[in-house]
């Protein structure tokens, strides 16, 4: 019955392509516009928070942490309200994760604070005995790539119409003009921190990775 197909590589390959395209067309395409809508009044992340998101991706925190609170009582008791699609509308990429070696972080900004994160990122088992999370001391040494974060904001604004203000625009001049705003935002975070390296870097006008990361974690609400 199918034997003729097996002698016709061209038709055979076409048949495979058709058969495997079905599901994507039916399942994914219809939902696209609908699922892209943000919650009302939702603001995109600030550039500093984007830089923090990039640190989160660089150190690959999602290998242990999810950002998806499922609608179970056991999860909403532990982490807060279940997650809504609209909350992720500006997340590129989505960072839901697929493994909870550590707890969910989607609303971590509600119940942890800057000073706690500082102590925890430096040495997790000291704060939570038995923790197997690695210490991220290097985030106190490395400087966050805030320029790339700005470039990202410009990109999503121009290409995907993410609602950033007029101060986010192409080119180096715009970036130079925006930079002080970002540093000011970082200073507010760093003010709650104790580490000497952070203070030194901030004094030089640099933003350590950990400061950006904490800005991001605080924005997860």
């Amino acid at each position, binding site marked *: 019955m199918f034997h003729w197909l097996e002698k016709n590589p061209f038709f055979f390959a076409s048949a495979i392509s058709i058969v495997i395209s079905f599901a994507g067309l039916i399942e994914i395409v219809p939902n696209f516009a609908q699922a892209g809508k943000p919650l009302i009044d939702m603001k995109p992340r600030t550039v500093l928070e984007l830089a923090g998101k990039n640190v989160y991706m660089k150190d690959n925190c999602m290998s242990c942490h999810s950002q998806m609170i499922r609608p179970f009582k056991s999860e*909403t008791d532990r982490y807060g309200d279940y997650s809504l699609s609209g909350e992720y509308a500006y997340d590129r990429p989505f960072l839901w994760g697929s493994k909870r070696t550590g707890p969910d972080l989607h609303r971590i900004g509600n119940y942890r604070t800057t*000073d706690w994160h500082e102590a925890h990122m430096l040495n997790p088992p000291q704060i939570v005995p038995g923790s197997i999370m690695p210490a991220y001391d290097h985030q106190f040494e490395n400087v966050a790539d805030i320029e790339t974060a700005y470039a990202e904001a410009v990109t999503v604004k121009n290409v995907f119409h993410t609602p950033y203000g007029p101060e986010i625009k192409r080119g180096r001049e715009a970036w130079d003009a925006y930079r002080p705003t970002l540093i000011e935002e970082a200073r507010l975070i760093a003010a709650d921190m104790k580490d000497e390296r952070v203070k030194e870097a901030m004094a030089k006008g640099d933003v350590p990775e950990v400061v950006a990361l904490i800005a991001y974690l605080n924005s997860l609400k």
Partner: protein
Amino acid sequence: MNGLMIKSLAFSALLIIATIAVVMSLDIDIFADSINAITMGGAIAIAVITSAVTVKYINQMKTDTASGELADENWDGIGEYKNELPSGWAYSFLALFLWSMWYGFFGYPINAYSQIGEYNEEVLAYNTKFEATHKNADSVTLKEMGESIFLVQCFQCHGATGDGLSGKAQDFTARMNKEQVLDVIKNGSNQLGYPMGAMPAGMASGAEAEAIASYIAGGLKGDAPASYGACTSCHGVDSKGNDGMSPNLVSYDALVMNHVLQKGKKGVLGKMPAFKTLITPVQEKALTAYIQSLSN
């Protein structure tokens, strides 16, 4: 049943028993929660079906012989029989296909089922019952309940014993330490939302402030320093907050707990987040009972 089948089913049984034993040793009731029960059922199905089916076919290597009509074709010496489909396989395929139709149209109807709807119903029912059951819980119950909530939500900052991890957060074995009081005297505070509003900065300084701070940190024992009078106007002569107008400086009473859980608090030690929705009223009462028990 032959040896191989028995061995492989025994292995499956062992694995399942081990799993159940570990779970039960943690005080988890597998059957009280239908999700737990279905999961165990699924695990059993995986182990048993895989063992039984694979061993059935492996046994055929021992007992059966290859037969059938060979196709004409041959690739690099590989031939092909024109045997019919194994009927068990074919019927299972059909059956599962029909089942999937049932599942999509009736089990979880694709046009009607909502996981959020299911959640809302379940949680509403649960919460109503929970608040009603524990409305008048006695102090022992509250304390026990509070301890378990504390160990889930609070211990990451306050430490398992509530000692505040050497000064990283509030130490519940006392009401306040000297450093904290000094800070408030010096800088004032306006974040907890008491009817009295803000606590002004600079109410005392130097040795006076030191003396007041030692007095409060020491649990308000003995004679109050003279300058403490400035404080009692707001915090009350007994320092218990003037009927809720300002914070109680002696103990963690219900109002202190309520204000800090609603508003959070930033102090010298660090910042305490607000727990507006994560903690229910009964849970707040329970936490209060537990935290009070730590300072006694």
